């Protein structure tokens, strides 16, 4: 198990083309203690890249459908250029392809806009603690990805993007299953006799294992671009 790394919600970057949504998310972040001047906004992928070039963020909240591209691309770009900055998807879509490709690109959370502000702030709080919020529908998509048929005789299944699916530990699979059944973190922690924090850490690890290309490669690439000293 990896060491739990807390995430700083400040400074934060909000990438969404709708001003109302940007406003709403800024409100949520402020509710979590993020000062207004530490919240940067971007309405397109290009603007977002500019913002990331200007400074380092503690967290990036990304919409999927952006005017000049997909949030998924931006998350992949982020992972190469600022691999230490976690990206969280705030999307109105819950289609399987989008969820899976966002997670494969490196997102550590997938939140739905339809949720209450309270729910969103609970999820962001979880991220701040070093966890990774996960919904039953996301868990079910990941389980579907893992169960995808692989090449005959192959040990690990290959998803449509050609990247092999990592093998999860039995405990991680167990947690996925429980999440899919709708259990809360508290319930899972009680059921598995582990701490709630450990549960969240497991989900974060699940997300990390889903990311295509190795972390070291991403780091290497980031260095090559002179983004890491």
């Amino acid at each position, binding site marked *: 198990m990896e060491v739990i790394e807390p995430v700083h919600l400040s400074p934060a970057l909000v990438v969404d083309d709708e001003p109302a949504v940007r406003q709403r998310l800024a409100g949520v972040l402020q509710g979590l203690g993020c000062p207004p001047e530490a919240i940067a906004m971007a309405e397109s992928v290009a603007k977002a890249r500019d913002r990331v070039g200007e400074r380092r963020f503690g967290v990036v909240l990304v919409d999927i459908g952006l005017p000049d591209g997909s949030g998924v691309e931006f998350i992949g770009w982020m992972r190469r250029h600022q691999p230490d900055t976690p990206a969280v998807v705030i999307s109105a879509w819950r289609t399987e392809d989008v969820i899976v490709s966002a997670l494969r690109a490196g997102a550590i959370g997938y939140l739905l806009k339809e949720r*209450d502000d309270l*729910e969103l702030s609970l999820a962001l709080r979880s991220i701040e603690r070093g966890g990774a919020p996960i*919904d039953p529908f996301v868990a079910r998509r990941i389980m579907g990805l893992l169960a995808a048929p692989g090449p005959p005789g192959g040990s690990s299944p290959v998803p449509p993007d050609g990247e092999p699916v990592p093998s999860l530990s039995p405990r991680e699979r167990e947690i996925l299953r429980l999440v899919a059944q*709708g259990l809360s*973190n508290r319930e899972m922690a009680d059921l598995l006799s582990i701490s709630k924090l450990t549960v969240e850490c497991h989900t974060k690890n699940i997300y990390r294992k889903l990311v295509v290309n190795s972390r070291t490669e991403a780091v290497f690439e980031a260095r090559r671009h002179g983004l890491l000293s």
Partner: protein
Amino acid sequence: MLALLLLAGPAPAAAGELLELARAQAVRGGWHDAAPPEAGWQAVDLPDNWAVRWPSQDGVVWYRFTWQHAGDAPAALMLAWINMAGSVYVNGIELHRDASLLEPLTRSWNTPRQWLVAPALLREGENTVLVRVAGMAAYQGGLPPLLAGEPAQVQARYEEELLWRHDLPLVAMAASVVIVLLFGGLWLMRPRETAYAWFALMSLAWLLFEFNHLATSPWPLAGTDAWQALNTSLLVFFAAAFLLFVLRLRREEGAPLVEAAIWLAAVLAWADLWSLPRTGMAAHRALWSSVAAAATAAAAVGVFAVRWPVSSRRERTLLLVLMLIVLAAAAHDLLVFLQWVPGTRYYAGIASCALLVALAVLLARRFTQALRETEQFNARLIAQVEAAKTELRDTLERTHALKLMHARAHERVALASDLHDGLGGMLVGSIASLEHASQPVPQDRILAMLKDLRDDLRLILDATGQQPGLQPLDDVIAPLRHRLGTLFEANGIVCRWHLLNVGDLTLTTSLNIGVLRFLQEALTNVLKHSGARRADVYVTRTRTHLRLDVRDDGRGFAVESAGDAPGNGLRNMRTRAERLAGVVQWQSRPGRTVVTLLIDLLSAR
């Protein structure tokens, strides 16, 4: 065959003449006479039937032959038959004597015999052979020519006679036995086919009739008269059975009138034959034998007019030839019997073997045809079964597709109705309350209305399922459970879910929505109003019901005023439950409140 036999026989050892003594002296005697009378001899030509000369002579007739013998070579004598029993003397020395020379007489009428005469018995020059024949004029008592000569040559002639008079009739009888057993067996297996029975009986009659050629005594009958009456009776029975066979072949149920006439004639013949004095026998035997032969010949022709499955021309020709052979032999025999043509051999019995061949051909034909029909029938049957199966499968598929379409349409209608009644109702209600509000509606009230709408939309989405295929209830519940679980957790309320037997329970979309609405309503009440520290959700499925219990340890509410106090929530619950054929119940006291929804799974739509 004859030539073969002759060749196979011993070759003549020495040049010797085979004498056929066709003339003899004959004289009448009594049953018990030991020697011929001195006077009364007269010359006769052989073969002799003394009835022509002495129509009432029953008893003994002496025949005397003389021939010249030269040298001291051994000689052989042969008689093709003696009618009926006899003894033979050479130069006064007895050479042969049949077993019984008095009634019941030994039946030697068709038994060829040869004797090797030792040289010591022979004289140089004239030798005399005396044959004492015991018989009856009515049964054609008489004697054939005597053969005398070199033993090998006599042997050859003897074997020829033996072949025609004994061996071949024996073979023919064996064939008849086969036919009797075969057709008798067929009839036993298929009693409906009475033609088989008549054919078996007919063959049996023929078999017994033919036995006359081989029998050497009238046993088990009392004497010659009874034997001869029975013999002709069998011939009559044979003819009757043959006629019936042909009739039944033509029509299975038979023709009662014709059959009765046949049996009447047969019974008449039997009564005549068994009551007649011996003097009338000769004429009546000839009469009934002729009648039987004529009837048989007519029936044989009739066979060709019936429906035996003779399809190919070759078979028809073969059958015709075989039939003609048998008929010719029978005609010949009849004429010999009536003494209208010379000869003493009978061939019909032997020729009837041809009948066996014909039957074998017909039966084989019938068998293979039945087999072919069965095979064709099987093939047809299999094809039909396959066709029926295909049709059934198609029908089932169509029915299934139709059912599926109906189910989908029903789901669609149900979903639309849910949208209308639920979401639509809430929308209409919200609009009404906003429109008719006397004062500006506070923002949080509007927000609450919109959130209610959003929550209901969420429930509908969750209940419909995100993936194709049927979703079990626990999958349907999962999103709501997770969402509310997180909220409870954030509020410091312990919420525990207890799902029992619902892993394989799939409900209609309407029921799913109903279940989710109930849970959301009940749990939101707990969250907002109860002040509880712990909530328990029980989802239990029994054989007939689905039961949902939401229990909390909050402050509770007064059940009577439940319709008003915690908002419209509980009343809404009740209305919705009724639509699902469900029952909602409350139990509330401080520290323990239970809201229950009971759905009858058997009657729920």
